[in-house]
């Protein structure tokens, strides 16, 4: 299995032409918001021919018990992701910047509600 870079999934359409005359729809990633004010969270993925059917399938697959008040779908091929191999150099710059945290700063004793 070749490692894939920059994409969340392999090219979902790659096998289409050989597939016994049956088409495989593209993969969509589904993000659901559980209640208003909450962030959208990745729930999983599904296949659909277009965005409209992707939303309907997402409701049926990921919200059969009112788990969502809002759903986003996005075709997997449109997602760009970091790769684990690049993690050390990609995320390292934040590791030594402790001055970005409030604990870095000394304040006089006794001061309140700062």
């Amino acid at each position, binding site marked *: 299995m070749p490692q894939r870079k920059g994409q*969340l999934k392999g090219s979902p359409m790659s096998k289409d032409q050989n597939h016994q005359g049956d088409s*495989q729809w593209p993969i969509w990633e589904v993000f659901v918001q559980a209640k208003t004010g909450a962030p959208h969270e990745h729930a999983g993925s599904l296949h659909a021919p277009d965005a409209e059917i992707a939303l309907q399938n997402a409701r049926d697959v990921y919200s059969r018990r009112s788990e969502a008040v809002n759903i986003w779908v996005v075709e997997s091929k449109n997602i760009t992701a970091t790769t684990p191999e690049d993690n050390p150099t990609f995320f390292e710059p934040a590791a030594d910047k402790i001055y970005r945290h409030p604990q870095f700063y000394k304040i006089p004793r006794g001061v309140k509600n700062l």
Partner: protein
Amino acid sequence: MEDESKLRAFEARIEAGEKIEPKDWMPERYRKQLIRMISQHAHSEIVGMLPEGNWITRAPSLRRKMGLLAKVQDEAGHGLYLYCSAETLGVDRSEVVDQLLYGTAKYSSIFNYPTLTWADIGTIGWLVDGAAIVNQTMLAKCSYGPYSRANIRICKEENFHKKQGYEIVATMAKGTPEQKRMVQDAVNRWWWPSLTMFGPPDKDSPNSAELMKWQVKLQSNDELRQRFVNLTVPQASVVGVALPDPDLKYNSKTGNWDFGALNWDEFFAVIKGNGPCNRQRMRARRIAHENGKWVRDAAGAYAAKKRAA
């Protein structure tokens, strides 16, 4: 040499309780074993709809019918969660589905048994879903992130499956003499196949050691089977249904319920395709897939038309 150090790093991550995500480096064996396990699990959910689907139109009340419909719909959803997690490992769903339809993939052998009476629906929910929950509760903690998350979702929903089944069993066990006979007969037929759902004994399960080392599985087949028996024996006695095993007895030394020998010849015969319903199940799946083709084609054509407009 490079792979050797990657393997060590991979195993150290698992040892530390980290989850492995799709794009992380993983040994080829880990990927292959997971694809095999997850797709078999997905196929089992899909084929598992057939024995129960048999009774939707003949459910004894609207309440029972709604419950059973919702349960069967959940199984379809569970199949889809699992196919989606298999796809994160680099297989196409169409490829995996073809393996099921054209006979090269396995699914849980229990779904090759027939559902003869309404009592079978209660018993399947109680015993078959009960056994599946024991297995899936373990898999919810497995080392592969997407498979773990799919199982967490599944476990949340399966609880209703087991309870609706147990309610049916409990109701019939308090019913007319004929209903009592019917439910006892169903339990007699499903008990042993439910125990074999956990797979062959540890000594005959060659993949287990590797799967446990990589924490794809956290407990062995025999441990899970014992856990299921221990959970189920008291549930049977509450409703007054007998489990068909003369050797079943409590072992005060181990705290376990000891049980009789399982029929592994039958298990392997059913896996090889010689169960009571293997051919019927596969025929039903193929017909459903072929009959759904025009819907897939129409949706695809409509999407293409909208894109062109």
